[in-house]
């Protein structure tokens, strides 16, 4: 089911949770809403689910106005961060809940319900837990049961609010891959909220980056990482070196000294130069746009991380250099950004 969000606005008292959000989600897509806390991502998700109502704006499911329906009629599966399993019911009854509360005319027979719950337990690979109560399960198991419960009603849309937020790192990683392969299997339009960029970039087809109630960028994981649309996205996703610069005509100045960099469509004035750590290449001292001295080197994994004091601004930056480049503390080096972006402000 395709979702269309038009100019959604939602305030809680004086706090603007959503400040004019537009978004289209294609049928069968797996989308991540990524942003810091307070960016409005959970509010957007809850509005789509019908658990919250916008102050203004439109919401359409396959062209049909969804705001005229309550949460009950939207047929949306919702998975909560803290699972929200019914604590007094067994795992089996939790999953069966959505089937049992259907109006009598639509309700499946007991045998059909049992069959369906069994299928879902197999799908989440936890069939041996059917008779347990939620407080007897681990966090990862609870979350998978919560997912099975949401899928029981054969939702047209699946929404997940920080689905792995309360789990430890190892379980998170496993469940991430599991969610992606599950989506490949069932193909239901899915949106999940996360503040963990790795999670968003690894799992989603498209990533929606939000900040302060607005959408900053929508794109593939590659897009938002390699071509950030704004200073916020660049600093929020991946690690960036940020240097305050001044744009004068077609030149970039750092502390009054011109840098040998190309300015592309940035207005004159105070700006910020963004470079990824691994995009800062080491060159000969004296012949590069930036000059500095190595103050600290740490080697781990495929790269070595070096702290460098820049001569131009006396600030310290961290870069990732290949391990075969021998760096010594105190060594004077030149730096050239292979890829960089300049944003006003």
């Amino acid at each position: 089911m395709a979702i269309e969000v038009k100019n959604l606005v939602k305030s809680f008292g004086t706090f603007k949770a959503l400040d004019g959000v537009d978004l289209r989600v294609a049928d069968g897509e797996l989308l991540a809403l990524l942003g810091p806390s307070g960016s409005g991502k959970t509010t957007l998700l809850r509005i789509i689910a019908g658990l919250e109502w916008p102050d203004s704006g439109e919401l359409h499911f396959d062209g049909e106005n969804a705001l005229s329906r309550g949460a009950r009629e939207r047929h949306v599966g919702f998975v909560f961060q803290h699972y929200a399993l019914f604590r007094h019911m067994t795992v089996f009854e939790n999953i069966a809940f959505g089937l049992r509360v259907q109006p009598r005319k639509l309700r499946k027979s007991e045998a059909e319900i049992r069959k369906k719950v069994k299928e879902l337990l197999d799908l989440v690979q936890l069939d041996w837990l059917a008779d347990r109560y939620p407080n007897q399960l681990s966090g990862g198991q609870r979350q998978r049961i919560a997912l099975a419960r949401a899928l029981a009603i054969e939702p047209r849309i699946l929404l997940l609010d920080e689905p792995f937020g309360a789990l430890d790192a190892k379980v998170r990683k496993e469940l991430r891959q599991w969610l992606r392969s599950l989506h490949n299997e069932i193909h239901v339009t899915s949106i999940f909220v996360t503040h963990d960029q790795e999670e968003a970039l690894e799992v989603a087809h498209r990533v929606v980056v939000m900040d302060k109630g607005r959408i900053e960028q929508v794109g593939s994981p590659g897009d938002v990482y390699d071509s950030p649309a704004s200073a916020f996205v660049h600093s929020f996703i991946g690690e960036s070196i940020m240097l305050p610069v001044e744009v004068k005509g077609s030149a970039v100045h750092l502390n009054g000294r011109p840098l040998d960099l190309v300015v592309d469509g940035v207005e004159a004035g105070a700006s910020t130069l963004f470079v990824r750590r691994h995009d800062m290449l080491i060159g000969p001292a004296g012949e590069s746009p930036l000059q500095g001295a190595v103050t600290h080197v740490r080697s781990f994994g495929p790269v070595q991380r070096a702290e460098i004091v820049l001569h131009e601004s006396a600030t310290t930056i961290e870069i990732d250099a290949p391990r075969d480049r021998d760096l010594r503390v105190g060594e004077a080096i030149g730096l050239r950004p292979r890829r960089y972006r300049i944003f006003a402000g």
Partner: protein
Amino acid sequence: MTVPRAHASSPAEIARPTHDPRTEPKAVRIVLITLAIGFLSIFVVLPLVIVFAQAFAKGIGAYLVALADAEALAAIRLTLFVAATSVGLNLLFGLVAAWAIAKFDFGGKTLLITLIDLPFSVSPVISGLVFVLLFGAQGFFGPWLQAHHLQVLFAFPGIALATTFVTFPFVARALIPLMQEQGTQEEEAAISLGASGLQTFFRVTLPNIKWGVLYGVLLCNARAMGEFGAVSVVSGHVRGETNTMPLLVEILYNEYQFVAAFAIASLLAMLALITLIAKTVLDRHLDEGAPRGH
């Protein structure tokens, strides 16, 4: 947990502590424990013992005769009916009020919470007087009630109303913190799974608070049966008709019928003891959350 003490007995030790560092000096402990036991004895144990001693002062035969008296039986019956009525009403009101306060946001919520607590902060005698002013012959509804030959004051409805008012906070007070702590996520999950409001309440909310409900009902019932002040004002003390057990205790006592007075009082004391035991059991259930059937 014990503190390892191996090093304390080592020969290298110089300054041996004069007392166990984990607790107070012996003298302080003895004084504190004596005070606590003394206080409990004087205010709780002694009165209980006296009630039962006086009730059985002339033997078990006299005790049973006193309880089998027509006035006593009428008082017991009235007390049970009044308690059943007010507990029933307050169970309903308390559930509705707690559900509204804990699960929804609306204007005037703080005011509502304050109002629910009102009966606790008003003297029961004043509460009773309010009902006299409302339903008495010169009261607000008085002429209308007389015109329709309805008797509220000095009859069962008045006693039940006054008792219901006085015991109003118990169920709501037991449920509000519990329901607030449980939050609304399970309800939201139920609704997104297609449950109606009633289905959500009966299948999700109520099972989660059942021990809290029982707890509230228990306390409400104990207070309803024992209420004196408000009932005394609205009852009219018609013997064999509008005397509840606490009122009858006072009347019998004033007439120097000590065995009869304490016999009725012993029933109320037993109610208190049973309530305490049940409360302890419920406390354990509430602490553990819902018990697991297995």
